[in-house]
């Protein structure tokens, strides 16, 4: 009897603790009931590949959120990286090149240049937050505006002015749009990059001193200081990592879309923050898991993809999407509901 009680209690506890995964599954079931042909490998691959660059951004963002920070400049950094990498990767035979005389560069050079740029911006964000004590919201808001200006200046130059940067070279397109063939399907490289980024971040968060410090700083910055954590240094590194991830993701966006403008990545930060919060990352810091972040991104992408797939009219999509997000989190919150 007592045993049974415990069992029941532990099942309901498990359900509560994992309610967001349960929600994800319910959501999928709901869509499949509405449209059984949703259940196809193509759709599955599409959702995964569309989630990939978002996952990479969200992982960077999540680290910052866990330190009780935030990063409004994420989307603009994605844009900067997209514009930089696209401008350096235009096919040599393309007529409207930004740098007509640039030789064909090996793929990794532009990617590294883009990542270096966003990494540096990340470091500056980190310094403003940790050394000048500017609240992350304002620090990164300022950076968001500034980076947009910088990207625009870089982007809008003679001879072609503010024209989208296209004509990307073959290797870049392959890098971002192709995949590994398995049977009649292709596992997109994008998904593989996302998986690699996930593993890397999982290791950092769970197996390194940096990860522990990150949680400590978010959980109780005063205590972290007294426990001998170099708060400023760790914060700067976390913002740096985020910047690098945004940069990588920005190059993927350019490659995936086949072109880039100064508007690429606009508002991605909001999606990323929202996905993190839906996935259980606390905006007041100290709490968050890699699996939660991934789940959050997938929920968003399934909502987006599913609603479009069901053919719901766009304005109604907004209404439904807003409602689903709130419901998902309202459910999730029951696990924190005051254990009264």
């Amino acid at each position, binding site marked *: 009897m007592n045993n049974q009680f415990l069992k029941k209690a532990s099942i309901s506890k498990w359900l509560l603790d994992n309610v967001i995964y349960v929600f994800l599954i319910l959501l999928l079931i709901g869509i499949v009931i509405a*449209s059984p042909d949703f259940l196809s490998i193509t759709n599955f691959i599409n959702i995964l590949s569309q989630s990939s660059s978002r996952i990479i951004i969200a992982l960077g963002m999540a680290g910052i959120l866990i330190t009780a920070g935030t990063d409004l400049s994420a989307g603009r950094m994605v844009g900067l990286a997209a514009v930089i990498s696209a401008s350096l990767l235009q096919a040599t035979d393309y007529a409207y090149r930004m740098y007509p005389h640039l030789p064909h560069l090996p793929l990794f050079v532009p990617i590294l240049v883009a990542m270096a740029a966003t990494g540096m911006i990340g470091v500056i964000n980190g310094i403003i937050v940790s050394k000048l004590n500017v609240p992350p919201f304002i620090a990164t808001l300022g950076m968001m505006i500034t980076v947009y200006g910088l990207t625009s200046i870089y982007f809008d130059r003679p001879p072609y002015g503010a024209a989208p940067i296209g004509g990307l070279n073959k290797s870049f397109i392959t890098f971002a749009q192709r995949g590994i063939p398995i049977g009649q399907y292709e596992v997109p490289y994008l998904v593989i990059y996302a998986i690699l980024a996930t593993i890397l971040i999982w290791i950092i968060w769970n197996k390194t001193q940096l990860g522990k410090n990150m949680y400590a700083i978010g959980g109780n910055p005063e205590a972290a200081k007294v426990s001998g954590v170099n708060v400023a240094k760790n914060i700067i590194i976390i913002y740096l990592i985020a910047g690098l991830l945004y940069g990588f993701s920005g190059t993927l966006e350019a490659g*995936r879309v086949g072109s880039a*403008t100064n508007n690429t990545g606009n508002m991605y930060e909001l999606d990323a923050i929202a996905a993190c919060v839906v996935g259980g990352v606390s905006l007041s810091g100290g709490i968050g898991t890699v699996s939660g972040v991934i789940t959050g991104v997938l929920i968003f992408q399934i909502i987006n993809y599913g609603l479009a797939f069901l053919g719901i009219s766009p304005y109604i999509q907004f209404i439904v999407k807003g409602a689903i997000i709130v419901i998902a989190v309202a459910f999730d919150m029951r696990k924190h509901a005051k254990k009264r």
Partner: protein
Amino acid sequence: SSTTGGSSANGKSGKLPAVGATIYKFDDNFMSYVRRSMQDEANGKVNLMLNDSQNDQAKQNDQVDTLIAKGAKSLAINLVDPKAAQTIIDKAKPKNIPVIFFNKEPDASVLKGYDKAYYVGTTSAESGILQGEMIAKAWEANKDKWDKNHDGKIQYVLLKGEPGHPDAEARTKYVIETLKQKGIGVEELAMDTAMWDATKATEKMDAWISKYQDKIEFVICNNDGMALGAISSLEKAGYFTGDKYMPVVGVDAIPEALDMIKSGKMVGSILNDAKNQGKATVDLATNAAKGKDVLAGTQWKLDDSKAVRVPYVIVTKDNIQVGEDAYK
């Protein structure tokens, strides 16, 4: 009911061929008319699956994946970013799905690279050129009144749309080039972006009026929305009462602008023919979806870059009827 949805104007169209369509931004004023025209045309002919790309090319790419996964027989694509056309084709070509781009023109070379790709729309420069011509004509007629400092040159301020947006860039560039080509002297007092937004336009205009006062001789706007905002600011500063006047031009010929043109607060606007753009797009897409020749049974013609051109029209007080008919 598995393939329900699609066109909201067309619920029970399970057996009709499916056409996947994306609109670069659903609530873009002009595109809302094109969209409506497309829906009217599609009714009963095809199952039109409309998507809102929310001004985000990455989102549009995702939507194209979805549309293909849903079994679209042809695609009607209003690009966010014209240079992304190749990627869309790369998605459609392996499945042999025809693509009709509309309203935002891809590079000719890209169209050439896929035999089943076409374009419906205007040339992006045209609205700027026509706006320039309209300004030139009005200026020549009213030079004595409008050239306040009598130097023969137009001292103008220009409200630009979102930087990097192809329309904003083309309109800004060609309106001025056209004026210069016509031998009219121009001097830019100020140029700033108001991001297509009326409120921002009002505020920029407030500052310019305060700064330049009577030195401004012309207000050029990339769209009518910003023109309305500018007019609101001008009215506040006492323009359009008595003989204090300022010529303002926009693009789109939205109803509100037509009203302004009638009441003389706007010199004119440029009408983009939404009805025919929508109709041509659906006509081509329908034929393509049915595997017919795209022009079969239509009034449209292709030019050498596989494009159907639907011309812009200048709308001023003299031909206001043309604008009003567009909303009938």
